[in-house]
């Protein structure tokens, strides 16, 4: 099959055997592989067997299939809102069904990079609008009038002149026989009713009554339970194991090895967990067993050594030679585990005729392809069903835990659910990389930034900079480079990869430079943006006006520049994942300690699809940003993380959150994602406000460990 765009967006419809309309992209007539497994939302089994984004039944029920993984970002509500808007469907009669992986019907079934909404916006609108137009044509034909005389509202076609009405359900079968239009007209954005309103999460009732929606809840009659003992340190491998005591602990316990791991299989979670503790395993060293002290030494070597140039504008050397003032600082951030509340798990059933995978994954297609590769079978033999996910934060972009389940099922020749404990999860090796940054800024006599350098030193971080981010383009002489140490400690994308700590460092350092230049933090940034606009240096990959707009909105909402007694403000702004977020943090002193009181966030994600979902993503991202900047730390001793559960790894708690006020820029631009962009600016706004309040510049995360005395008794 070619990936020709016009063909992939080709729309087709078909009448359901029982009446009704099915409409979908990329219709190839194949049967879908499996009905959805999630209880409580899957009464449309007849419909899921067709290829479709939406279907309309004769009783007027509109079913919308949401293809992308739901991870808490609210996509399962947002996608259907977009379809229903253009369809003019009555939201009260819309049912939403999670679609399984189907690479023929859907594109980019991924939860990551804040990319779902921007990627699918037009396609979802077109799906709704096309069906709407067909329904209108069917009604017009029946009435013997022109389609242009008809309008639609809440799942009805209305003949405006006569007031005649027909429900979508009554029209669906006739509409399905029409040829889908190719030049469908989308709504004028000012006519949006559902988009931009507050819509409740479609799964909330099921969630809050304890329905089994998550991967960990999935159960198949006859399936086995398994846990896996992985090497106790990064850099160790399996030498040998003795399973005799484990096998004797309960009937039917199996113990098998998967390369450098040992899997324990049994009939219940507890039985397996106990048997696991009885397996005697010998490990041996296969690589360096690194400790945090090693990393601190390595950072210094990387910062002083050779690096790969990422961006070079002008002549940095001369700028620093001519500088009236030079500002230098280093910032450091630790490894972090993702810690989704639902630990890793996956169900796999490797059969003679194919493989069934069920569970929480942000990348079902990777799970499919890599499983196929592992088992040496064609990808189409592997089906993937998506459960709801108890968070992901990037952890479930990996497929390690899926492949373990598939491999184990192929060995024991049985359906199996592999479960991770929290300790497995926290020591399981998909961490935010640890990074140290070195910044230098050159100021002229007037306090203009004439030179800027940034060196990123990362451990398995790849390019730890984002060289084209602000202030690139606003500084005539700029050098950004990075150096990397390859470690046995494995890393992966963590919510807002790289920028989740780079933004803190950059926005704190800019604050340091503004202070050194004797300038207001907001004014300093606006001046830089003005320079980028009127006299840009090199390529500019952010939108200057959009960044300026969020800066001004945050300043306005927070009363920046107006004195508030006893309140210190810190500023931060960041562009990531195509959205713009500015923040002002308010810190007050209580008993001599800084307390974060409030954060104002100004957000430009273009059109807000769902007020409720968008606000939740912004406040959630900010709480995440505060929690990890303040408390999150993962340290190593001889290749083993020191923190393995929540008794040692501190997550933010309810009494530690500030008030959060969110404002959206209303600019009508096509929407961008929000799963990530609110997090990156948070550490900077908080650190900058704490500096204002205390004079203490926090340069290392977690803040609580950089200066324990500063925060003592605060939380």
């Amino acid at each position: 099959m070619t990936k020709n765009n016009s063909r992939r967006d080709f729309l087709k419809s078909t009448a359901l055997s029982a009446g009704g309309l099915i409409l979908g992209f990329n219709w190839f007539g194949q049967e879908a592989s499996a009905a959805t497994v999630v209880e409580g939302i899957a009464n449309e089994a007849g419909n899921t067997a067709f290829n479709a984004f939406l279907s309309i039944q004769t009783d007027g029920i509109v079913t919308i299939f949401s293809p992308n993984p739901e991870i808490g970002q609210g996509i399962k509500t947002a996608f259907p809102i977009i379809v229903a808007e253009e369809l003019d469907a009555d939201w009260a009669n819309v049912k939403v069904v999670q679609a399984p992986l189907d690479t023929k019907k859907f594109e980019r079934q991924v939860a990551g990079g804040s990319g779902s909404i921007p990627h699918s916006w037009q396609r979802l609108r077109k799906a709704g609008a096309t069906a709407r137009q067909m329904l209108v044509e069917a009604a017009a034909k029946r009435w013997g009038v022109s389609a242009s005389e008809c309008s639609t509202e809440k799942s009805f076609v209305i003949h405006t002149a006569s007031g005649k009405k027909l429900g979508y359900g009554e029209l669906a079968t006739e509409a399905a026989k029409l040829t889908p239009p190719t030049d469908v007209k989308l709504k004028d954005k000012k006519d949006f009713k559902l988009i931009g309103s507050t819509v409740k999460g479609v799964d909330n009732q099921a969630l809050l009554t304890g329905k089994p929606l998550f991967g960990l809840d999935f159960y198949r009659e006859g399936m086995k339970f398994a846990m896996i003992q992985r090497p106790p340190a990064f850099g160790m491998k399996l030498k040998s194991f003795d399973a005799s005591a484990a096998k004797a602990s309960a009937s039917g316990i199996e113990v098998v090895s998967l390369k450098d791991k040992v899997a324990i299989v049994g009939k219940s979670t507890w039985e397996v967990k106990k048997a696991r503790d009885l397996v005697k395993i010998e490990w041996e060293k296969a690589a360096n067993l690194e400790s945090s002290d090693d990393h601190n030494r390595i950072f210094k070597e990387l910062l002083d050594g050779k690096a790969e140039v990422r961006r070079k504008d002008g002549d940095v050397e001369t700028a620093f030679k001519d500088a009236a003032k030079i500002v230098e600082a280093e910032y450091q951030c630790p490894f972090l585990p993702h810690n989704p509340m639902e630990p890793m798990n996956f169900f796999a059933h490797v059969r003679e005729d194919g493989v069934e995978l069920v569970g929480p994954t942000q990348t079902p297609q990777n799970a499919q392809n890599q499983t196929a590769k592992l088992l040496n079978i064609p990808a189409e033999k592997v089906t993937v069903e998506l459960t709801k996910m108890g968070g992901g934060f990037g952890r479930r972009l990996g497929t390690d835990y899926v492949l373990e389940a598939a491999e184990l099922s192929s060995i024991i020749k049985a359906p199996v659910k592999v479960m991770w404990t929290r300790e497995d999860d926290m020591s399981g090796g998909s961490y935010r990389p640890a990074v140290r940054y070195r910044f230098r800024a050159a100021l002229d006599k007037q306090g203009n930034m004439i030179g800027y350098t940034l060196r990123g030193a990362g451990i398995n971080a790849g390019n730890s900079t984002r060289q084209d981010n602000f202030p690139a383009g606003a500084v005539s002489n700029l050098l950004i480079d990075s150096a990397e140490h390859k470690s046995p400690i494995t890393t992966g994308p963590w919510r807002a990869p790289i920028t989740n700590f780079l933004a803190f460092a950059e926005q704190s350092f800019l604050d340091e430079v503004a202070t050194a230049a004797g300038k207001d933090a907001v004014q300093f940034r606006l001046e830089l943006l003005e320079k980028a606009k009127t006299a840009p240096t090199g390529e500019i990959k952010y939108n200057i006006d959009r960044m300026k707009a969020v800066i001004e909105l945050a300043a306005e909402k927070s009363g920046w520049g107006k004195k508030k007694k006893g309140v210190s403000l810190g500023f931060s702004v960041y562009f990531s994942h195509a959205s713009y977020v500015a923040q002002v943090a308010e810190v007050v002193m209580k008993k001599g300690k800084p307390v974060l009181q409030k954060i104002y966030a100004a957000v430009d994600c273009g059109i807000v699809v769902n007020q409720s979902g968008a606000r939740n993503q912004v406040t959630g991202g900010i709480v995440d940003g505060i929690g990890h900047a303040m408390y999150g730390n993962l340290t190593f001793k001889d290749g083993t993380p020191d923190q393995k559960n929540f008794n040692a790894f501190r997550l933010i708690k309810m009494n530690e959150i500030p008030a959060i006020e969110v404002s959206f820029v209303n600019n009508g631009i096509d929407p961008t994602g929000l799963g990530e962009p609110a997090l990156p600016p948070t550490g900077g706004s908080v650190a900058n406000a704490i500096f204002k309040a205390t004079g203490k510049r926090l340069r290392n995360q977690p803040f609580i460990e950089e200066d324990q005395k500063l925060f003592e008794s605060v939380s």
Partner: protein
Amino acid sequence: MAIFNLTVNGKKTKVDVEPDMPLLWVVRDFVGLKGTKFGCGMAQCGACTVHVNGEATRSCQIPVSSLAKNAKITTIEGIGETQLHAVQQAWIEEQVPQCGYCQSGQIMSAVALLKANPNPTDADIDTYMSGNLCRCGTYDRIRKGIHRAAESMKTGNAGTGK
């Protein structure tokens, strides 16, 4: 293995399990109620919170053999069987969940809090709920949800469970 007679959500249930099996795994793997979640296995996150005789309890730390003979166990599935509990209703109104995984435990703690203290202040809520972690950061709406539930329980407009 041993036989245990349990009362879960008002129903008598018999399970044949190891005596040291935590109530969490009895409820999930043997009673078949999946609403009670596993988060940490060491009473640090609150995802597994159930009620034992009305008391909020971390089910991951309670061996089934340690339960009193007539112990009444209530899980998330049991608090609003006929009508949504005021707390569940408030959670919907405030749009509390993001991923939702921790919310069964949050709700079970909130129900217990409101039983002990029908008019909690923000500080009361923060203290009582500090053992329930939420990785998505829904804390502010949880707090609002508890206030809303407290209000509706006073006016008698919503379910309060059995």
